[in-house]
């Protein structure tokens, strides 16, 4: 194993370090970062558009570039989450919570820097993991059937309540609200359209981007404007340094390590793994150590999820490269690109086309390096952007949101829906009902129901399957324990109010 690994890495370096591939790697990550920064317009649309360009490229270069766009977008996505509270995709939602608060306190620079550093570390580690353990990890991932996914989602949802820093019962209620909203659309298991009222635009559900732009972006803008004249000082003009302090680095180091571990583990699960990683990392950080600063600009709340989601982004290539199964729509596109090039994605890619497999892995590491080199200097530029008077900034933000949402499926309906969610988000803020648990419920809800019903279908209606399958039982057990831990102190009124007073 040792010799072959070195041999394989040599092949990888040989392939990835060619001038052409370095160039395409750079183009990919650059483009990905830019796309990620534009809220709403995600890597999917970009890759789709660039697909014809890749037809004429050699397959390795094409895939290196496409992959670069994908994980580059993760880096860019955290930029908007931190700067303007706009999550570009599901994984960046968590970064908004503490990252944006840090920006408001004049600490956008350290937030962005830690995010880049954490992502780089996570990317490197994840790449090593792929190199060493890709095939066995893929086998492990296959052991996750519907019952196990259901249990994982339940665990995720129980943890959702930890995301809130206010009233626990309202957080649970918001989670359930999110679950219900996620059910709008066509039900996978029966083919029936639920809560669509005949509107074909809703038949595939409400898009995540629409909800996120509305609740996080629009509601934030409106709230800021309502605060009157002082709104022009949304961002503290005195920026306290562009780089994290030693204290920051020390406290984040543990967070980065833990985030990387969680992200790498969850990323290998096709279908829903990587989504959970950033949020699971945040939850873990909050539970370990001092939870008081979370939600108000705690740097660990940025470091952990960012590392997790980058690790998850890298490891989610494992099902693609080893089994030919895409973990998300972006990878499905890459499979398409591979097929056009005559490469059949599947188990034999590793053996029949080692340059492709190992070249991609090494270029991921190179790409991460390029990204951190690209992003760190840009922090200064981003921070300067925040000093632009808010009255000029917010219409621009609004434009990007609207364009981003519209570009999803070219329907004005989506923009209207975004405005509605902007309204709801604003109302919920007034009621102190937090958006983060709701978003989580929104993402996880449909997955949870789908897997629950599928597990029951497969077991022909036997619910004991949840207790008898080992992984599933363990995950459900942890969920119950976590639930008890969370609820127990809250049962006593005094603690409940302590939550509310925060």
């Amino acid at each position: 194993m040792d010799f072959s690994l070195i041999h394989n890495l040599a092949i990888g370096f040989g392939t990835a370090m060619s001038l052409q591939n370095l160039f395409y790697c750079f183009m990919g990550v650059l483009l990905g970062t830019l796309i990620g920064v534009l809220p709403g317009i995600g890597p999917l649309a970009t890759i789709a558009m660039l697909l014809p360009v890749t037809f004429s490229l050699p397959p390795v270069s094409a895939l290196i570039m496409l992959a670069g766009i994908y994980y580059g977008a993760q880096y860019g996505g955290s930029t908007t989450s931190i700067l303007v509270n706009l999550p570009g995709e599901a994984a960046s939602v968590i970064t908004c919570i503490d990252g944006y608060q840090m920006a408001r306190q004049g600490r956008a620079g350290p937030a962005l820097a830690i995010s880049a550093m954490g992502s780089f570390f996570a990317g490197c580690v994840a790449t090593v993991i792929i190199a060493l353990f890709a095939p066995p990890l893929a086998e492990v991932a296959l052991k996750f059937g519907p019952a196990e996914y259901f249990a994982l989602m339940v665990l995720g949802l129980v943890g959702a309540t930890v995301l809130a820093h206010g009233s626990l019962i309202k957080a649970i209620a918001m989670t359930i609200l999110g679950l219900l909203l996620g059910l709008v659309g066509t039900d996978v298991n029966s083919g029936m359209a639920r809560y669509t009222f005949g509107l074909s635009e809703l038949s595939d559900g409400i898009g995540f981007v629409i909800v996120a732009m509305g609740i996080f972006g629009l509601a934030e803008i409106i709230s800021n404007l309502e605060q009157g004249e002082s709104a022009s000082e949304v961002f503290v003009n005195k920026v306290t340094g562009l780089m994290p302090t030693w204290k920051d680095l020390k406290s984040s180091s543990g967070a980065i390590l833990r985030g990387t571990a969680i992200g790498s583990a969850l990323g290998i699960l096709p279908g829903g793994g990587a989504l959970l990683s950033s949020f699971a990392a945040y939850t873990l950080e909050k539970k370990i150590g001092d939870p008081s600063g979370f939600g108000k600009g705690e740097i660990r709340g940025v470091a952990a999820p960012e590392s997790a989601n980058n690790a998850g982004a890298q490891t989610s290539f494992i099902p693609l490269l080893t089994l030919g199964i895409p973990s998300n729509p972006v990878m499905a596109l890459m499979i398409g690109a591979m097929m056009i090039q005559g490469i059949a994605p599947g188990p034999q890619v590793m053996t029949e086309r080692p340059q492709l497999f190992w070249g991609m892995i090494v270029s991921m590491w190179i790409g991460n390096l390029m990204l951190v080199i690209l992003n760190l200097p840009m922090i200064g530029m981003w921070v300067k952007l925040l000093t632009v008077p808010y009255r000029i900034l917010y219409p621009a933000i609004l434009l990007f949101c609207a364009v981003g949402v519209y570009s999803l499926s070219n329907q004005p309906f989506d923009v209207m829906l975004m405005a509605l969610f902007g309204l709801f988000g604003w109302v919920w803020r007034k009621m102190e009902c937090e958006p983060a648990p709701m978003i989580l419920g929104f993402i996880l809800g449909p997955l949870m129901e789908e897997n629950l019903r599928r597990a029951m279908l497969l077991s022909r209606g036997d619910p004991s399957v949840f207790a008898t399958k080992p992984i599933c039982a363990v995950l459900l057990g942890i969920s119950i324990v976590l639930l008890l831990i969370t609820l127990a102190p809250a049962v006593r009124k005094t603690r409940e109010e302590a939550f509310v007073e925060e």
Partner: protein
Amino acid sequence: MKRLIVFALVLAMAPLLACAQTYPSKPIRLVVPYPSGGPLDITARSIGQKLTETWHQPVVVDNRPGAGGNIGADFVAKSPADGYTLLMGAVATHAINPVLYGKVPYDPIKDFAPVALVAQVPNILVVNPSLPVKSVKELIEFARAKPGALNFGSGSTGSTGHLAGELFKTMAHVEMVHIPYKGAAAAMADLLAGQVQLMFDNLASALPNVKAGKLRALAVTTLRRSPALPDLPTIAEAGLPGFDLSTWFGIMLPAGTAPDIVARLNAEIVRALNAKDMRERLENMGTEPPPENTPEKFSAFIRSEAAKYAKVVKDSGAKVE
């Protein structure tokens, strides 16, 4: 006076002729009624690129996903018939959905002018190797011996993977449970894991795992064998004569488009399909450019498919509200 009238008529016709001759004079929109990334989308982009090269007018792919393809199809049905809005219609939008959904907001026959069939991709019956069957006959026997024990996965209710399974059940008189997934990839993942035992998946997607031995291929669903797997029998040969199902897609225009535009498009598309690199791509998908590809043949094909699926869907009892 007569000469004046003739002259006026010719003058009036001139812009029409000019239009037809200088078509295309502005960018063309190719609507793909599915999200980016599937084989249909990828092929649409390939063709779009080829047409762009020939005509020096951009052919832009516009993804309009939703409602199993109905949203995109409806959009084109209601677009002006000037030749600048094309649809990559598929078996789903023009044969399956009208029956499956009960009604769709467009008429698959009357609202469209078919231009050219692009590809007809077979589905392949694959089983997890843990299932002790090595042929279609053995599968049928196994299923009859244990009714309701087998699970078959599909990418969604109403997909060709699902309907192939239903047709199989009807023709072979066996009981199997359909497990729908959100996308064929998710179904494939569970098939590899053994949660479901068989699947009627798209040939191109299943091929790598078959070749790697992770899946066992039993037969293809079309009447003709696939050039990619010439040794694999068809289901019709292997035990259910008359079994014929495939995923096809092709270019269509709104009804009422000028016949010469239709003819020009057809000629160009056929040329693009037969270009060496397109042929290769189609072969990678397990198929080849359709022979004798004329708008009339395509139109007749759509009609026969619509009739066929009307029966398949009804017999299976599958329904989407």
